[in-house]
């Protein structure tokens, strides 16, 4: 690892070795141990981290600001943003992760459909006599004259 690479590591991940990518940690620590300039860079990064951590503390002013905002929010709140008709949202908002249960269900449906198709379970039982009688009954209803008036349909 070069000094420039160490500096990039310090800038992008901070001075704490625990935060460094494992693949770079040994090389970086080795350079810091063996090179005085690398050690200086590491110490400077520690100082910068400490200064930024102090800067980042939640200040009393933030608590005061939050209290002021809470006061402003004490009044009536605006209307909430509700969808007037939720069904399209629900339909479009399906979650497909993890996908395997749905894929498995779809595969089962496809397999059952295939079995039903090739075994003929989806067709009505063929009963020739009954069907013929049924057909003749229908014909008589359609074409025979009406019993009282004699009118044909």
């Amino acid at each position: 690892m070069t000094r420039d690479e160490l500096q990039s590591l310090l800038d992008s991940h901070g001075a704490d070795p625990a935060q460094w990518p494992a693949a770079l940690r040994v090389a970086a620590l080795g350079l810091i141990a063996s090179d005085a300039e690398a050690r200086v860079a590491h110490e400077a990064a520690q100082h910068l981290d400490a200064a930024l951590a102090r800067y980042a503390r939640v200040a009393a002013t933030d608590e005061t600001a939050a209290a002021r905002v809470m006061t402003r929010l004490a009044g009536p709140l605006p209307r909430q943003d509700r969808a007037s008709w939720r069904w399209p949202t629900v339909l479009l908002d399906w979650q497909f992760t993890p996908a395997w249960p749905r894929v498995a269900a779809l595969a089962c449906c496809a397999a059952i459909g295939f079995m039903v198709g090739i075994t003929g379970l989806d067709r009505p039982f063929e009963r020739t006599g009954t069907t013929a009688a049924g057909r003749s009954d229908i014909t008589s209803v359609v074409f025979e004259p009406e019993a009282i008036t004699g009118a044909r349909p």
Partner: protein
Amino acid sequence: MDDSDEALMARIARGDEQAFRLLARRHLPAMAGLARRVLGNAAEAEDVAQEAMLRVWTHAPRWQPLAAFRTWLTRVVVNLCLDRKRRAQWVGLEAAGEIVDPSPGAGERAESDERERLLAAAIGTLPERQRAAIVLTYTEGMSNAQVAEALDTSVSAVETLLVRGKQNLRRALSSVIDEGE
């Protein structure tokens, strides 16, 4: 009763104002501080914090817990800040006015405060996305991946922002850093 952020959001989605105020009280100090550091302006930061919390209220019925509430709220605040920064130029801390720290012993920390003021001023001169990356890393304690999510960018882009931001800070603050505790 479950008072996690996500449970409160579920109650807020049903119009529960008490849950909203509880959630706001929990997150407002940190969000106000985050906005103040990104914007460099305390008054605008309050406006952003208020707007962010109102978005929590109005968007709650459609909010999906795909990410942690805090991450989502941080993203809302950062986006509001960056939108404002695009509309207005940076206002230095001096122009924003002095904010008096009411805590005891404030006078004794004058030297430390001065260093922090210089640091804040240096951070204020950074380009907005470099500043946002640094503030999120140190204020929110976010990993680079979480910062990338908040800024809607890649991890490598965040690393570049941090490298360039710290290079700029080192140039501006070499004496202050050397005097660090």
